[in-house]
């Protein structure tokens, strides 16, 4: 089989060199785009933090349903599964990184403020997308505070939205009082377990 080719890539060696160069460029560019393993880890920690904040919200809602109001502090909060206990691996009251209780303050019977320190900004996130119940709070790198309010639905039944993307993001507390979040429609039937 005779094949004529005039121009670049005339030998197997030339193709090999071009392919190797292309692979090196792709790997370098890919590593830049995918971020370093250390960055990926930070995003995972923040995703876990977000998840815990959402679980904390669910636990607080359950507490408010049973007791009529939010707890004074997080030590009064009980797991929302009957007979359950917070374990070291999973305790929505605690920051996954430091193990300390989240900074929590009750504002009213159905309003609270919670603060957490994040390592990354959610705007930079390209990690596996995660949406927890209540939506992903957007966060900046550093300390973020959220004023959250239990909706009427949350006080009535288990709150587990079908499509979390429909939930508006939780407004951030930026020194001035934030507007109360809209109550969200679309709840699944009562009794859906929170993850």
């Amino acid at each position: 089989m005779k094949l004529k080719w005039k121009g670049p890539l005339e030998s197997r060696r030339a193709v090999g060199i071009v392919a190797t160069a292309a692979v090196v460029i792709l790997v370098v560019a890919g590593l830049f785009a995918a971020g370093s393993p250390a960055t990926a880890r930070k995003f995972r920690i923040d995703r876990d933090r977000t998840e815990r904040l959402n679980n904390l919200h669910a636990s607080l809602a359950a507490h408010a349903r049973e007791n009529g109001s939010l707890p004074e502090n997080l030590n009064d909060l009980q797991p929302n599964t009957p007979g359950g206990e917070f374990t070291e691996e999973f305790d929505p009251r605690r920051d996954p990184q430091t193990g300390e209780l989240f900074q929590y303050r009750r504002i009213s019977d159905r309003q609270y403020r919670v603060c957490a320190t994040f390592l990354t900004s959610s705007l930079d996130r390209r990690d596996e997308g995660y949406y927890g119940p209540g939506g992903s709070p957007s966060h900046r790198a550093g300390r973020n505070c959220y004023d959250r309010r239990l909706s009427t639905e949350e006080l009535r039944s288990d709150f587990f939205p079908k499509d979390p993307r429909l939930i508006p993001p939780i407004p951030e507390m930026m020194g001035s009082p934030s507007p109360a979040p809209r109550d969200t429609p679309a709840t699944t039937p009562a009794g859906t377990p929170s993850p």
Partner: protein
Amino acid sequence: MVFTILAAVIPLVLIGGIIAGVVYAFNRRRTDSSAIRVTAPRDFFLYLLATVALYISAIGAMTVIAGLADFWFPEALDRGELTAGPLRFGLSMLIVAFPIFLYVNRVIHGKIASGEVEPESTMRAGFTYFTLFVIAVTALVDLMVIVKVYLNGELTPRFLMKAVGVLAIVGLVYRYYQNDLKASSDESPGPPPGPEVIV
């Protein structure tokens, strides 16, 4: 999606390799060369390994290009749905499989240079033509998808980068095997060439 491609391609490679092996076994009786007979399984698995490593590298490169296209050409409504997972998986395929491909090819060409491997064997041609076939089908499907997406009016820079990336990789592999065929038909009549060829 990557797994789907792998799941489709690897059996294809195996089947192609087995066909090449069977063709070779029938051919072998006629050539009646005891040296080749002894080394046939070794050669078979060398070619098979090189082929599998090449396919994984090519798919990895396509995955990385697709991931980079997502990253470089962000589109509205992407936020939160795009992940770096496929990009990392493509990177891992490239990082592992491509050096193996280079190494196995080095071994094969070293053995050709020392006369241990017959460069014009049916088995080798079988692997080469099988890969050329896969390349042709890939290019065909890629062009088809480009036309379809163009007709749909969805020809975004992101899609174009992915499609052109596939074509570029396929073209590179094609050039490689084309040169390989040419080289082996040039090499065989004369005395064995000196220690050449890295890839």
